């Protein structure tokens, strides 16, 4: 493995929250990055700057503020198209979050394409956001959901996957690029290739991959890709849905209203050009613009470097806790196959209790089912603890985490 080359101490200066004190005098150690990341000053400034200098409703107005706002808003679309290597900005739709992006596919594409007895194929690692929309859809249509299983290390069996895909009546494959619990990186390129051989489109839930490693939609050749700004230094309230142009052309609208129309008459409407047809109502202008600043920030670092740094820190963390008495670490042990997410349980300390104890030391980790109860059932646990890393996390922070873990073991006498 290459040495990580991020200048983490410089990066940390861009994140004011990292100076925050918890429980009086403990410096915050933020290890819940899979839930949401912190925001650097340029992102916060982009929001303030917008509201202090050129806030206005976009697309339709002639005056200068609106021209400036429209320009900046559309610039973010260009940045994102480039970031994931889309063919065109037409393929980039702004939503509220990754969840709404997946729902958009379900309401628009799937509702017109999936019929009775047809199938949507998921996996056991999916986040609720990539399960519930398909339950709603398949229940409404009398269609079927199928889940490809994982092995005890958290890997997919690609041969089994193939069997699922090759059965009749599969209309859509939807899979997470990276598990938010196990960290497993899924072989999406292979999956997509298999699915395309049967002309089945594939949705990639990129909520955990796009923020943490280079993702190239032309290279993996996915049909849909969903992700959230807030998990990659951007503000809350912005998600992205990428859709391949050929498919997007055929999709009926989802949210009806202002901005997504070309001409409205009493009983019929001509919809707007792509991608606006899918963006009804006043968009989240400020936050989309600020998301552009987040993309700039990540580009300056380089997504390869982001990935390297996370592998380095993750490796350090796994090695440090690996041999503790009573510990179970979920997911692949080889950091080449996993992201910077470490889920575990230790003895009979319930994850919520562990998180409370950690918080007393200023350490923010997540505990619970991580919106992945199907996976929890598969792992046969009610909950896990999870530490997840990003560009500003250091090995010293991992050490602090381990000290707090020792303290928890002392309290629980483990």
């Amino acid at each position, binding site marked *: 493995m290459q040495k990580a080359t991020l200048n983490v101490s410089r990066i940390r200066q861009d994140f004011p929250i990292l100076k925050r004190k918890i429980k009086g005098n403990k410096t915050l150690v933020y290890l819940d990055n899979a839930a949401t990341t912190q925001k650097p000053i340029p992102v916060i400034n982009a929001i303030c700057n917008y509201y202090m200098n050129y806030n206005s409703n976009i697309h339709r107005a002639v005056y200068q503020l609106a021209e400036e706002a429209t320009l900046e808003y559309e610039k973010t679309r260009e940045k994102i198209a480039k970031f994931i290597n889309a063919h065109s900005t037409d393929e980039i739709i702004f939503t509220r979050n990754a969840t709404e992006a997946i729902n958009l596919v379900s309401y628009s594409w799937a509702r017109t394409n999936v019929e009775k007895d047809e199938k949507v194929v998921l996996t056991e690692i999916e986040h609720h956001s990539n399960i519930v929309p398909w339950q709603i859809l398949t229940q409404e249509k009398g269609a079927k959901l199928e889940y490809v299983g994982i092995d005890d290390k958290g890997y997919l069996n690609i041969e089994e996957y193939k069997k699922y895909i090759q059965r009749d009546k599969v209309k859509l494959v939807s899979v997470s690029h990276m598990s938010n619990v196990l960290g497993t990186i899924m072989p999406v390129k292979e999956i997509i290739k298999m699915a395309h051989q049967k002309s089945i489109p594939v949705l990639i839930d990129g909520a955990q991959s796009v923020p943490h490693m280079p993702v190239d939609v032309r290279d993996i050749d996915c049909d849909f890709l969903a992700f959230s700004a807030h998990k990659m230094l951007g503000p809350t309230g912005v998600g992205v849905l990428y859709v391949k142009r050929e498919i997007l052309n055929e999709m009926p609208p989802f949210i009806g209203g202002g901005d997504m129309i070309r001409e409205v008459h009493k009983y019929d409407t001509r919809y707007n050009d792509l991608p606006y047809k899918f963006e009804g109502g006043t968009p989240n202008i400020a936050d989309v613009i600020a998301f552009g600043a987040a993309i700039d920030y990540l580009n300056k670092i380089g997504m390869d470097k982001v990935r390297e740094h996370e592998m380095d820190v993750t490796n350090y963390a796994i090695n440090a806790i690996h041999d503790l008495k009573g510990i179970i670490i979920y997911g692949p042990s080889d950091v080449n196959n996993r992201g910077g997410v470490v889920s575990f349980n230790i003895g009979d300390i319930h994850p919520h*209790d562990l998180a409370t*104890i950690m918080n007393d030391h200023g350490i923010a980790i997540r505990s619970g089912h991580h919106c992945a109860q199907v996976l929890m059932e598969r792992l046969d646990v*009610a909950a896990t603890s999870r530490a997840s890393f990003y560009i500003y996390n250091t090995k010293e922070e991992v050490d602090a985490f381990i000290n707090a873990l020792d*303290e928890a073991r002392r*309290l629980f006498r483990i």
Partner: protein
Amino acid sequence: MSDDIYREIILDHYRNPRNKGKLSNADVSIHDNNPLCGDEIDIHLKVEEDKIKDIKFEGRGCAISQASASMLTEMIMGKSLNTVKDLTKEDILENIGLINLGPARIKCALLSLKVLKLGMIKYYADKDPPSAMKLSDDTKLY
């Protein structure tokens, strides 16, 4: 601080819960979970002459939710339903000796009380409660 929370007695109830299990001849059984963290509690009640004749609970979750449930069963065993229905959130927190829980963990401590209240509502759903007894259908504790 966590030293105050994870005292000997809490860990003891967590690891050796009292009145844990099923109740074959229960008059009412009720289940609920905390949607935010997934903790689960089932309470089974045997009622006689408007008193709690027997109580058992099942559940899984954190030390706080499970110890709190265990301690609750001890507290109300044999008590009249009229007393039980008036139990407040403060009674529970005092009973388990945790009065400074933050808003997230307080839900764990009060889950069993919520389930108990749901159980009372269910128990009286097809009977009239004793005339003196006013049953609130508000189960919001936090």
